[in-house]
């Protein structure tokens, strides 16, 4: 039973309202489950432009490329029936905020009382269109991408080129080596993962790659991809003037937010995502928060109290789940019952046999200190500091410590941490500069982006304040 204090319209919404979710992936599915779990009995429509049921993406660059799980076998389990109308294989193409209506690519329209946008991101393609079309050039975001790349890797190409050594690129390189394929990694930064974890940890990642037999080239960009007469990729040209013969190139230059369909909607949506408040309600371009449009997952940017109320854009699995649950709850709750999405950023990556996990916002860190273990053993815990407090932590094969550091971050504990460490080594005695590249330089690396305080930021490039 609903409490009597709920006003009639909210009760009606929960009983017979119309909720539309655009983006039928991780965030969309978890939101749908939460709506039903919390007693929403109205009509629920799930719109997704991919023809597939919601599936899990992290295995695509790991289990799938390692040939352990087929690309079309990562469907997400449902936590409960969601009793939804599924409109799969159809993109949403427009939004009329005043009429509360979503337009679809097949010409149909959907009226809503509450809309949730979970359209995520897509892989940034290779910028030279003709080169991107060469046979052998891939990106990796969808299960279809993974199926194609997997097929090509299984054919045993002579050499694979990975362009960009963020998490995705590094995981792909790792899978290639494990399958015995020769691989060259070209990274613009000074080391792999440098945008996400900084230079100190990046050096560890570089050593891991080289030891595994990766031909790692840092401080290098790929200037061109060249095909043969039949349109098959033949070689890549690098900024140092060298040339690498490759049959496969995987473009791992980060992601673009899927917000184009909202271009004229009046919503605060741009290349950096859709701005929403901590309660997942979308801002309009005037910076006024809407009451019926909510956002979650990779496409959202929301302010976080732990990080100076800057808007954060996170491309993290856990953020999609947590944000979806909060958004769904808030969509059908009175304002006093709403909850904030103040999840502490967390992610993992598995590469070169090492389990990498992180909490907080490492790119905010000015300094880093190894608090446990040792960099050279590739088994360590390191904390990042910003203005005298712990802002993030990373572990390599020491995940069990992460919860402790999360607690420090949430308490804004002092940095360097003042606890006696279990096995302090020389490298752990003093903090050193964390070694993040200038944030105003274009980068594909970080999966956490600080994107300032303006809800209607529509610029492509953004210079976050590090201070």
């Amino acid at each position, binding site marked *: 039973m609903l409490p009597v204090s709920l006003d009639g319209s909210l009760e009606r919404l929960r009983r017979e309202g119309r909720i539309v979710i655009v983006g039928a992936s991780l965030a969309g599915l978890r939101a749908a489950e939460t709506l039903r779990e919390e007693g929403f009995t109205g009509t629920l429509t799930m719109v997704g432009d991919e023809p597939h049921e919601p599936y899990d993406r992290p295995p695509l660059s790991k289990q799938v490329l390692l040939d352990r799980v087929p690309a079309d076998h990562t469907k997400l389990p449902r*936590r409960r029936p*969601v009793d939804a109308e*599924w*409109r799969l294989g159809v993109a949403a193409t427009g939004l009329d905020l005043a009429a509360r209506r979503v337009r679809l690519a097949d010409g149909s329209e959907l009226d809503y009382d509450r809309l949730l946008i979970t359209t995520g991101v897509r892989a940034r393609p290779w910028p030279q269109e003709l080169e991107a079309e060469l046979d052998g050039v891939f990106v990796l975001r969808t299960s279809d991408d993974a199926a194609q790349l997997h097929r090509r890797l299984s054919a045993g190409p002579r050499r694979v080129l990975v362009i960009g050594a963020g998490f995705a690129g590094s995981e792909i390189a790792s899978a290639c080596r494990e399958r015995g394929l020769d691989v060259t990694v070209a990274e613009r930064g000074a080391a792999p993962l440098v945008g996400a974890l900084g230079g100190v940890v990046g050096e560890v990642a570089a050593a891991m790659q080289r030891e595994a037999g990766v031909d790692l080239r840092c401080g290098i960009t790929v200037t061109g991809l060249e095909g043969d007469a039949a349109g098959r990729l033949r070689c890549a040209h690098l900024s140092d003037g060298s040339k690498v013969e490759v049959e496969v190139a995987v473009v791992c230059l980060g992601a673009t937010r899927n917000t184009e369909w909202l271009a004229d909607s009046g919503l605060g949506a741009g290349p950096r995502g859709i701005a929403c408040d901590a309660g997942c309600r979308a801002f309009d371009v005037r910076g006024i928060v809407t009451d019926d449009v909510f956002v979650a997952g990779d496409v959202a940017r929301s302010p976080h109290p732990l990080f100076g109320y800057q808007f954060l854009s996170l491309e993290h*699995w856990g953020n999609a789940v947590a944000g979806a649950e909060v958004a769904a709850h808030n969509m059908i709750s009175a304002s006093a019952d709403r909850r904030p999405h103040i999840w502490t950023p967390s992610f993992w990556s598995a590469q070169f046999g090492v389990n990498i996990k992180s909490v907080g916002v490492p790119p905010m860190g000015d300094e880093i200190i190894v608090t446990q273990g040792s960099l050279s053993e590739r088994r360590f815990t390191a904390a990042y500091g910003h203005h005298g407090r712990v802002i993030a932590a990373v572990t390599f094969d020491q995940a069990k410590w992460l919860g402790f550091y999360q607690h420090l971050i949430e308490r804004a504990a002092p940095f360097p941490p003042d606890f006696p460490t279990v096995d302090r080594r020389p490298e752990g005695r003093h903090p050193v500069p964390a070694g993040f590249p200038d944030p105003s330089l274009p980068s594909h690396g970080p999966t956490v982006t600080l994107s300032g305080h303006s809800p209607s930021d529509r610029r492509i490039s953004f210079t976050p304040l590090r201070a």
Partner: protein
Amino acid sequence: MRLVVDLNRCQGYAQCAFLAPDAFTMHGDEALMFDSQPDDRQWEAVLRAAEACPVKAITVEGPGGVPAGERSGASGVA
């Protein structure tokens, strides 16, 4: 059957890999790799693994595919 592991929660202690080795394997010392759609014959083992996980990181949907109550055949399905 479908499953997913919340790897933010997972502590890598490998109880699941011990109880349902066809669905969960350790990769290196600590990284867990799982089969998202293992064979239904592993249902009992997977269920035991999910129950044994000390941090309740494993979500499973039983064999038989889409849970009851789903409307299928929605328009526009490619």
